[in-house]
C-alpha cells in the first residue's frame, strides 16, 4: 500500500506483504520520526492527522510493531509531539490492537499504559479535540461501519478519568434533534455528570467539577467508615450530623 505521505518521504520502495519485520519497523519508525519532526503539533487546533498516513499501520505485523512503538516514547520522554502522535494512534487502533498494546505493557513490566493515562490527563481540551477528530475520520473511513450506523456516531474518549473535568465534545455538538445514549452508570452519579458535561448537556466549570469530585469522594470514604460504625452497634450521632451536612452541601451546590 502506498500513499501520498509516504511518497513525499522518498523512502526506499518496499513491498509490505513480503518484507521482513525489521525492515518494516525501521521504516515505520523513520516515518514517525519525520512525522513528529515535520509537524508542529499542536501549534494549531485545526491540525489533524491524515488518516491515510495512519492506515499503513493496519498492514504491519502488529505485535512487534506495538512493542517498537511503546518503547519509543520511553527512550525520548521529552518528545511531546511524539507522545501526541502515539496517543492519537492508540485512539484510532482497533480494540484488538489496543488490548495487545496494553497486554504487552503489562507483560513487559513497563508502565507505559499508566504513563499514557497520565499524559492524557495532562492534555488540554484542544488536544482532545484533535484526537476526537482523528477518531471521527477513522470511523468515516470504513464504509461498512458508516452504512450500518447511519445517523449514529459512537463517541469514544481514550483513557477517560471521571475525576477530571472532561471538557466538551465539540466534534459531536448537540441540539434538540440529538439523542444521547450512555452505557451502564454503575450507580455512579459522578460518571453520569461527567457524561452530561462531555456531551455538552450540562454546563459546569472545571473548578466546580473539581470541588464536586472532591466532595463525592469524601462522601464515598465516609460511608465505608459509617458501615463499620454501624456494625459495631454504636450510635454514631456525630457521624450522622457530619454526613447530613456533606450531602446537603453536595446537593445545594451542584445538583
Amino acid at each position, binding site marked *: 500500500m502506498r500513499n501520498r505521505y509516504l511518497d513525499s518521504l522518498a523512502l526506499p520502495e518496499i513491498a509490505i506483504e513480503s518484507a521482513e519485520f525489521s525492515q518494516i519497523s525501521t521504516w515505520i519508525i523513520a516515518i514517525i520520526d519525520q512525522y513528529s519532526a515535520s509537524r508542529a503539533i499542536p501549534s494549531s487546533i485545526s491540525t489533524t492527522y491524515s488518516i491515510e498516513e495512519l492506515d499503513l499501520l493496519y498492514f504491519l505485523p502488529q505485535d512487534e510493531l506495538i512493542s517498537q512503538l511503546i518503547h519509543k516514547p520511553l527512550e525520548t520522554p521529552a518528545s511531546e509531539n511524539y507522545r501526541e502522535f502515539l496517543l492519537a494512534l492508540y485512539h484510532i487502533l482497533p480494540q484488538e490492537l489496543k488490548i495487545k498494546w496494553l497486554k504487552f505493557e503489562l507483560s513487559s513490566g513497563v508502565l507505559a499504559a499508566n504513563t499514557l493515562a497520565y499524559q492524557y490527563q495532562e492534555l488540554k481540551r484542544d488536544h482532545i479535540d484533535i484526537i476526537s477528530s482523528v477518531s471521527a475520520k477513522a470511523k468515516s473511513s470504513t464504509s461498512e461501519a458508516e452504512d450500518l450506523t*447511519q445517523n449514529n456516531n459512537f463517541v469514544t474518549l481514550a483513557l477517560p478519568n471521571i*475525576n477530571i473535568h472532561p471538557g466538551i465534545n465539540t466534534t459531536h455538538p448537540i441540539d434538540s434533534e440529538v*439523542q*444521547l445514549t450512555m452505557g*451502564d452508570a454503575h*450507580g*455512579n452519579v459522578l460518571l453520569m455528570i461527567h457524561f452530561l458535561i462531555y456531551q455538552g448537556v*450540562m454546563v459546569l466549570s472545571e473548578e466546580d467539577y473539581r470541588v464536586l469530585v472532591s466532595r463525592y469522594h469524601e462522601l464515598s470514604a465516609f460511608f465505608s467508615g459509617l458501615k463499620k460504625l454501624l456494625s459495631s452497634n454504636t450510635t454514631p450521632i456525630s457521624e450522622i450530623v457530619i454526613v447530613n451536612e456533606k450531602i446537603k452541601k453536595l446537593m*445545594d451546590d451542584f445538583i
Partner: protein
Amino acid sequence: MTTKSRFNTVGLVRWMGDIVGDRGVLDYLVLKLLEYMKNSCVPYEIILSNHDLNLITFYELCLNNPLAEIDMERITSKFTTIPFDSTENTLILVELGILDHHEICRIINYCYKPALKLLSCTINQSGTKGNIFTHAPIQEDVIPAIAQRLGLRIQTDNIYQFLRSIDNINNAIQIYVEANMLMDILNPYLEYQTRGFNPKRYNIASDPFVTTLFNKDLKLMPLTPIAGCEFVQVHGHETVLIPRRGFEGLDSLLGKEIHFHDVKNPIIPAEYLVEMIYRALHSRQRSGLNPQHRIRSTSHEYLGGFFAHMREPQHKPAPEPTYESSTCGPMA
C-alpha cells in the same frame, strides 16, 4: 437549586440502566440528578436493568409502605452476589432518619418510574436503519416473547407498526410500574440475582424479561431486518471488546468504583484499563412515531406545562406516519 450548573437543549438522554442499585455511593444523589434534569426540562429515559431492580424491589417492598420496617438484614440476605451499595447506603440514611423517606418516594414516583422502559427503539428518517436498545444483549425472538407475556403481539407489516408495538410493550410495563407491581412479572429475577444468570438454563419463551435484564451470552445472531429496516442492537450489561456485527455494547468498567481508590495518585491496572473505555451513542434517529411519547417521561407532565412557555420547543412535529393503528394492540 444550584446556580453553578445549567443544562443545554438536547433531544433525549437515554440511560442504559444500572443507574441505581449498583456500586455507586448513594442512590439518592442519582435520584436528585434525575429530579434536576426533569425540573430543567431535559428529556430522558431509563432502560430497565438488573441493578435497577434492586431499588425497585426495596421501593415496592418497603419504601412505598410507610408501615413496613426496613429490615436490612432480611433484605440484604437475598442479595449476596450482586453489589448494591448505593441502595444500601440510601436505606441506611433513611433508617437513621437523615434522608426523608417521603422525599425519596416522591422523586422515585415523579422522576424515576415514569422514565422506565424495558426496551427502546429508534429509526432514521427513511426508516431503513434503526437501533433497538435493551440493557442486556438479546436476539430477535425475545421481543415477541415479551409481547406475548404481556398479552400483546408484535406487528411487523411496516416499520411504524413495529414501533407502535414497542410502545405498547413499554406502556404495558408502565402499568405494572405505576401500580408498584413490577416484581410480580419479574419473579424469577431474585433467583438470577443470587445464583447468577446461566444462559444454558434459561428458556426465552418463559423468561424473556430475565433475558432482557440478565443475559451475558454474546454469541447471538444479529437481528434480521424488520419491515425493511436494518436494526443495530445497542446494549449495556456486559463489556464487549471485540466488535460484533449487528451489536453495539456501551458498557465499560468506567466509574465502577474499583479503580480510583487513591484519587490523587490513581494506579490503573492495565487489565482494567482495557475495559475502561468511554463509549456513548450520539444519534439523530427518532424515537417512535409520536413525539408525545418521548415527552411523556419529561417534565412537561410533571410541571403541568407551567414552565413550557419559558423555553423553546424541543421537538419538531414528526411527519404523519402511514400505519393502521387498528392492526396493533392486544391479541385477539
